[in-house]
């Protein structure tokens, strides 16, 4: 039996809408469960105390610090490389064989799963270069991981800068590099920052690439050569090894709140950026 077109339409919309609503509910449910089980544990002491007895008691302060230090180190390396690549691709070359290969490489890198980054970071930074499990090894591994994101968002932001600005700058006797520094990059800044925020968000939640490169020391790092443990790794170890469910839930809650805040800030930034461009 064939339904009349009108009814098919109603049915289709119902199914599609139902699926979308279900997705949305899953998201809210995940956040709800994490916060409901975790928030009772979270208080100022939990955030600011050192863990005791492998994390069975005490707080999560060093992991909180590690969670922010690691992305910082990663960005310190990835930002100049990513923005430099974007500048080269947009301002210094036409579409050639080299740019195609670079784009292909970037796309491939973006598709590599984090466990492979972890393997690579371990064998290359930790073992071959002798950096050991450290902030530096982990940061460099994450830097490679987020490089494609930074390249892509920067490239998009740079392409959005009106061509007329460049023309004016050249006509006023600026060289290409001067034009990039004084006109292109300042105007692409919001987009570049968006890419950085996305990368930070991803780094904060990363576990597989971090656990084998940054290690899992519970002490505050004194230098980039010290091992750190992030909240994601801390949660994984607590839950997996059954050390303390309570503290694991608490850590998960803080982790989720942090990631959501970073992502919402990113979204807000992107939104105002796009709104500004449309003006």
């Amino acid at each position, binding site marked *: 039996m064939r339904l009349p077109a009108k009814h098919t339409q109603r049915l289709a919309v119902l199914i599609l809408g139902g699926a979308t609503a279900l997705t949305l509910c899953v998201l809210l449910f995940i956040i709800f469960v994490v916060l409901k089980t975790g928030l009772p544990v979270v208080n100022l002491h939990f955030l600011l105390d050192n863990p005791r007895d492998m994390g069975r008691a005490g707080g999560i302060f060093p992991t909180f610090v590690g969670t922010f230090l690691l992305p910082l180190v990663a960005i310190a390396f990835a930002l100049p490389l990513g923005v430099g690549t974007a500048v080269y691709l947009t301002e210094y070359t036409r579409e050639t064989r080299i740019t195609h290969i670079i784009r292909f490489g970037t796309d491939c890198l973006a598709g590599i799963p984090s466990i492979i980054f972890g393997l690579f970071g371990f064998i290359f930074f930790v073992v071959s270069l002798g950096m050991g499990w450290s902030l530096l090894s982990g940061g460099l591994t994450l830097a490679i991981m987020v490089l494609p994101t930074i390249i892509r968002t920067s490239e998009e932001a740079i392409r959005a800068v*009106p061509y007329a600005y460049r023309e004016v700058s050249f*006509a*006023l006797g600026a060289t290409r590099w001067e034009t990039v520094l004084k006109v292109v990059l300042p105007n692409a800044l919001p987009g570049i920052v968006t890419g950085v925020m996305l990368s930070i968000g991803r780094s904060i939640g990363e576990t597989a690439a971090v656990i084998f490169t940054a290690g899992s020391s519970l002490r505050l790092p004194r230098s980039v050569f010290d091992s750190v443990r992030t909240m994601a790794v801390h949660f994984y170890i607590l839950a997996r090894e059954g050390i303390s469910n309570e503290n694991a839930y608490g850590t998960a809650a803080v982790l989720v709140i942090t990631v959501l805040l970073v992502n919402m800030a990113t979204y807000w930034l992107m939104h105002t950026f796009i709104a500004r461009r449309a003006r």
Partner: protein
Amino acid sequence: MNDAQAKLTVRGLKVFFGQFLALRGVTMDIAANEVLGIIGPAGSSKTTFLRALNRLNELTPGTRVEGTVLLDGEDIYHPACDPVMLRKRAGMLFALPVPLPMSIYDNIVYGVRLCGVRTRARLDELVEQSLKAAFLWDEVKDRLRTSALRLSGGQQQRLCLARVLAMEPELILLDEPCSGLDPISTARIEEALTALKARYTIILVTNNTKQAARVADRTAFFLMGELIEYGPTNQLFTTPHDSRTDDYVTGRFG
């Protein structure tokens, strides 16, 4: 006029975009301190000619140039000629005003700073001079630090003119600078150009034949990438040698 007197000597200038021959061999002399008007219908490569004079065409990939352009007897397409230095001598005003998204002050000193002028007093002086020369000083002198994007269209174009003047160029290239402006703003720009003639050589591309008649000493007529004829403005408009010029200036096409 002979070559020794000419500010610009153009010989057989051709511009190709890929396979397309946009400018079909232009030969002309431009004297110092004159205003040369360039008229012609849309698509006649007036702008391409203008951009060949400060080598801005080469920013478009696939552009090729043949022929010679001598500025004060120096070949600007010689490999030893630095296009960056050339553009400092040949300032350009675009069809639409493009203030950079920074303050009025920073816009004007943009090029000057790149030349290495850093002293505050000198920069202040340049800003005041060039804004006065562009008839904009009185309107903006109290808000030099505010964004240039907040100026009106006519003010923006005069700001762009001031920005060019601050570079103290020898040549000013104007690419339909009034096409987006209202009559009053247009009159302001024209007023400024007439006053500037004493110190600069000015080449004015315009869609508006009346503007050429008002401002230019001599006028050139371009059609389909060719220079049809050029001569004193009066003569070109009243007794042109070529019938196509006659058709255009009397408004029969274009």
